[in-house]
């Protein structure tokens, strides 16, 4: 049989009598053998993507609200672009909303290192990785 990548989105008819065999093959996690006459085509697949901010390790939290960077800061409704992570020139990262509230309370320093806070480069912080089902 022709081996296909599972991401293939080709729609197909799978003959009834072959289904069981096909499932058995999938469950046993065998690589499709080239000798098999079974023709597997994926009719439907469910894509899952995952994103994280490129700010330290994945389980790191914002030092101000203590929520994950991927989570929502108080005052923001949705994670992601609505609640971006920003970096200071000192290299410390916080949710934009969190550090903005801090700087609005007449403070000018980084909550971590107490250096004068200056916004640093914020380009390309986001890393998108795709995962197959």
């Amino acid at each position, binding site marked *: 049989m022709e081996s296909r990548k599972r991401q293939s989105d080709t729609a197909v008819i799978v003959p009834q009598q072959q289904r069981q065999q096909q499932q058995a093959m999938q469950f046993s996690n065998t690589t499709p053998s080239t000798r098999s006459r079974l023709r597997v085509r994926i009719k439907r697949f469910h894509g899952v993507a995952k994103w994280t901010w490129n700010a330290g390790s994945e389980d790191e939290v914002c030092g101000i609200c*203590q929520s994950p960077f991927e989570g929502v800061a108080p005052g923001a409704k949705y994670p992601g672009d609505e609640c971006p992570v920003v970096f200071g020139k000192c290299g410390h990262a916080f949710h934009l909303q969190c550090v903005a509230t801090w700087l609005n309370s007449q403070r000018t320093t980084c909550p971590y290192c107490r250096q004068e806070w200056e916004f640093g480069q914020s380009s390309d912080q986001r890393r998108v990785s795709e995962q197959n089902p």
Partner: protein
Amino acid sequence: MAASGRLNKELAEVGKDDKTSGVKAVAVTPGNLRELKGTILGPEGTCYEGGVFEIDITIPKQYPFEPPKMKFTTKIWHPNISSQTGAICLDILKDQWSPALTIKTALLSLQALMCSPEPGDPQDAEVAKMYLSDRKKFDSTAKFWTESYAQPVNEDDAITRVCEMGFDRDSAKAALEKHGWDESAAVNQLLGGL
């Protein structure tokens, strides 16, 4: 509301290793995260060793952008803590506060302050003066205050003593808890309720 997620997390965190860190904080009334009671064990090797010091913690609305308000409710003889009111002079509880600090780190800072007083920046001038001029007298006074005011209450013993006066266990316990394990205040309440 905004900070309650963080507060919940913080309280869970501070309870995790309270045995080893020597500090803990719990809500005074369940469900109200704005009024907390902190406890610091007197650091070993200091005049406060063996004492249990209680701290009133009030979390302001703007927390963590404003520092928690902390004050000793246990009397303590220390240059940076008022011997009269329990008010604390510590920079991180004032202008040096940072939202990256937590209730736990603030309590740990207080514990560190107990280890190394800063008589140059006193809260209680009289205590600071004694610390600088007569260190022996300071040490013995601080120890005496620890022994007099900061002794842990054995709750079971207190309940038993109140029970011996003819009250049932449940109401004795409730009255003691309400009055911070002050036996005479608890008995007064129980008598008033008769």
